[in-house]
């Protein structure tokens, strides 16, 4: 920018909450639900909260743009089984219950990028789940 006369935009953090809702069918395996980051700004992820009908629910999370997995299998799978992720109650808590899960090292999710959630139910009943991302929109504001 030096010598061009232009100035870099200032980044302003605006509180923002992103929500993923899914009505997972009974005994579903890898039931998909998509989160798309709004186009207007990158999103800085600070907290995670999940509500669900039954705790017998596992989840996988993948960043679509990079195919980057966020949940890895920790042990070798026996033949004929597939990795279904983490129990949702181990991933995050509810804000009302006891405070949501802090990501601890906030993660920036680029604008317009998609994140794939895959739910697997073992409750044998419909499971309504809501995944909530708390954080900040990183709005670029031109400097006057």
């Amino acid at each position, binding site marked *: 920018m030096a010598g061009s006369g232009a100035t870099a935009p200032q980044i302003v*953090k605006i*509180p923002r909450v992103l929500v993923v809702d899914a009505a997972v069918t009974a005994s579903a395996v890898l039931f998909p639900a998509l989160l798309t980051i709004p186009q207007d700004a990158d999103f800085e*992820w*600070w*907290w995670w909260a*999940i509500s669900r009908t039954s705790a017998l629910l596992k989840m996988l999370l993948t*960043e679509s743009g990079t195919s*980057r997995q*966020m*949940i*890895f*299998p*920790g*042990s070798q799978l026996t033949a004929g089984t597939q990795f279904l*992720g*983490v*129990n*949702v*109650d*181990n*991933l*995050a*808590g*509810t*804000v009302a*219950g*006891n*405070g*949501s*899960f*802090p*990501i*601890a*090292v*906030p*993660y920036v999710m680029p604008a317009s990028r998609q994140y794939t959630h895959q739910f697997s139910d073992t409750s044998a009943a419909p499971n309504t789940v809501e995944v909530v991302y*708390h*954080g900040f929109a990183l709005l670029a504001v031109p400097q006057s």
Partner: protein
Amino acid sequence: MSTFLSRLLFKDGPPPASPDGGPPLRPLMLPRIIATFENIFAVSGNTAADNQKDVYIEGDGSVFDGAIQGGTPTWIPCDFLPLGPSKTGRSKMALPDNFTLLAFFASASSNVKGGFRVNVYDINRRIRLTERPVNFNLMGGTGNSPLFLGGDWGPSRMALPYQFQPFNAQVMITIVNLETVNNSIEFGLYGIQGGHPAAS
């Protein structure tokens, strides 16, 4: 000397004029103080007590800011579906490259007699991360009540993540089922993949 607080409390006169001869200096106003709060969720999400899960500092950032920046949040679970009554299970967990441990997580379907105990061992460095098997709730907490690594919580707010060997890192976990029934157990590691040490 007249300060903002003394003017507010004792009304000891108007703010002094600018040395440049311009208008009086603006006093420090409440909105400007509020504008310095970086994370409003620190209040709503953190607990009133100063627990280990309170990793964000109001008006500042994360307690890990001094140790690591960037990277991707990563969960690595290990399931025993189920572990038999009073049985011991072991599993060698392969970790993704450049993994830094921030916390554990754990759950058990039965928790009448304490659920289970767990021992964590860094295979590459031959270091035990637990001196002896620890009750799972004291080790990992849960999703809504996680326990983060860090010895000196409180006013000093020190927290130190643990970096495993960059490549081919493995941990051995040993799980002891304390229940006399089948127990569906999940134990795992939460941390950051990638990232880099913060500049000192």
